[in-house]
């Protein structure tokens, strides 16, 4: 009886998950297929699940009509810098909140954490005014990077991770004549590597996929990231489905490769706060 109900449960769950997977995968499949077939096919009334004529022409058109290489460079550069700053500041702040005693640490932490409750859209306009009018940084890398240089979410993630490291290691290092920065650098950071990897991957993916802020703050074509560039290309070439699909594939593929190669860390990232905290 027990095993029978279990079998039914597993079957139902498998069917639901299977359907969900299909719904999720079809658009991705469509995007990739649309980018590697002849343009005439992708606009036909009866779509072909497996193209009869394969072609790389959509990619050629996408790269020749746009500054795609420049956009890709921008995306890589910005995501890399944001990853580096988030790893650096996030781990330092996380360590301080997790392991160092200083007056008001709890208050400061809760104030920081409460900012996570404020929707990003609310701060968008003040942030825009600040960057454009006060700092005069419009249409620069600094303008894209600065607001995201460190996120509270990452500080929280690192605090949770570092709280799970034994405090006696810090005490041992202190007695072993290690400086305070030395403790962080030589003892804590090497042990926080799995946490840092998760933070780095999540930050890179988020920065790569970010659309709205780079869209808002950039005005020239050469400052656009791949996501922003793609949107402008869609507006300009609304009929060339093949090229649009090729662009979308170029924008999405690196993250898909990253995800599949580092799947382990993504899953770890989901459980860090829950299990280790």
């Amino acid at each position: 009886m027990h095993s029978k109900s279990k079998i039914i449960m597993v079957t139902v769950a498998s069917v639901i998950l299977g359907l969900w997977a299909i719904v999720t995968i079809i658009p991705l499949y469509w995007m990739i297929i649309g980018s590697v077939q002849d343009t005439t096919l992708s606009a036909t009334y009866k779509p072909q699940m497996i193209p009869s004529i394969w072609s790389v022409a959509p990619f050629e058109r996408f790269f020749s009509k746009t500054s795609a290489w420049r956009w890709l460079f921008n995306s890589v550069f910005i995501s890399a810098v944001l990853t580096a700053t988030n790893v650096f500041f996030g781990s330092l702040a996380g360590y301080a909140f997790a392991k160092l005693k200083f007056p008001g640490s709890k208050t400061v932490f809760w104030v920081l954490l409460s900012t996570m409750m404020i929707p990003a859209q609310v701060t968008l306009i003040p942030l825009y005014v600040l960057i454009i009018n006060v700092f005069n940084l419009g249409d620069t890398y600094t303008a894209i990077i600065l607001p995201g240089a460190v996120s509270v979410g990452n500080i929280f993630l690192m605090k949770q991770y570092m709280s799970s490291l034994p405090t006696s290691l810090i005490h041992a290092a202190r007695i072993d004549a290690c400086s305070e920065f030395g403790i962080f650098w030589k003892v804590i950071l090497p042990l926080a590597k799995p946490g840092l990897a998760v933070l780095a991957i999540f930050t890179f993916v988020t920065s790569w996929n970010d659309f709205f802020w780079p869209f808002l703050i950039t005005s020239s074509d050469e400052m656009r990231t791949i996501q922003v560039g793609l949107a402008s290309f869609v507006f300009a070439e609304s009929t060339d489905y093949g090229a649009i699909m090729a662009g979308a594939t170029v924008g999405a593929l690196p993250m898909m490769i990253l995800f599949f190669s580092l799947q382990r860390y993504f899953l770890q990232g989901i459980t860090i706060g829950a299990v280790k905290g």
Partner: protein
Amino acid sequence: MARVEFRNVRKEFHDQQKGTFTAVEGSDFVINDKEFVVFVGPSGCGKTTSLRMIAGLEHQSSGDIIIGDRVVNNLHPKDRDIAMVFQDYALYPHMTIRENLSFGLRNLKKPKAYIEQKVQEAASILDLESMLERKPRELSGGQRQRVAVGRAIVRDPQVFLFDEPLSNLDAKLRIQMRVELAELHKRLGATIVYVTHDQVEAMTLGERIVVMNKGAIQQIASPTELYAKPRNMFVAGFIGSPAMNFMDAELDGNRVLVNGTVLELPESMLSSSLADYDKKKVILGIRPEDIYGEDFVQNVKVEGKMTTSVQVVEHLGSENLVYFQVGERSVTAKVHPETKAYVGLEKTFILDLGKVHFFDPETEMRISD
């Protein structure tokens, strides 16, 4: 090596929710040069806090701590010339044993050749030579413990601090490591301050023992003295296993009345301080090993007889523990395994009256001396 002194050291912790908590109350003591001193007491008695204050990991709320001839109140742990072994070993998991051992000396920027020599010396003392290139996770509990000790040895500190270093080991290994630590103390001639909640560890290792409870020092004495002349009921109950038995009693001249039984005290027990309690209530303390079954009495000069029924018998092989009730208190006797005892047996027990202790029921302090 050096002496360690506490002068009226007090430590309070402040917590927004729980308020102020006093972990150590006005401690005063001197640990002599090359002495092995053990802090012992139940959880939360302030023993680890005291040790951490010597290390500089906690800062005292008031009072002075002196190591050698320096007041170290405001000195960073690294400048106090101490080394500490932690309960969970605190080995750096990402470093090899060699790197773990040399970490402190490298931070102190000692010459490479000197570091190498020190690491080799420590490894040879602790039999770690074959493991120098391994990581801590590849070592057993006992080996990790030795690395933790090695990390302290290479520093040549004035004072070694041990924070419950054996509590994570299994019983057999703990005894082995206890012997090794005692040998190490002889070999290094070091001043050692050792914290444990295990009174057997304290009694076997310590030259002197500091018994603590609720932040206050209860008694500082050698193991023999602690056992023979506990200063109060806490020390009497804490030192010795099974714990000392307490019975409500009343003094009447040289006799003591316990639950309707009259016991005649020997001359040697009658002190002037005990005379002050004539016709008054007292607490009589007697260790389980000083109670015998009537059929198996050994070397008792002055016997006190008490007949009662046996409640529980525990067979430990080398001895039996027999439990019985005196008034409202449960009493344990540690008797020879051939002593006849089973549940419900009406049995006469012999109390060695030359070895009883008396305590004031109000202050719980020792009366007899």
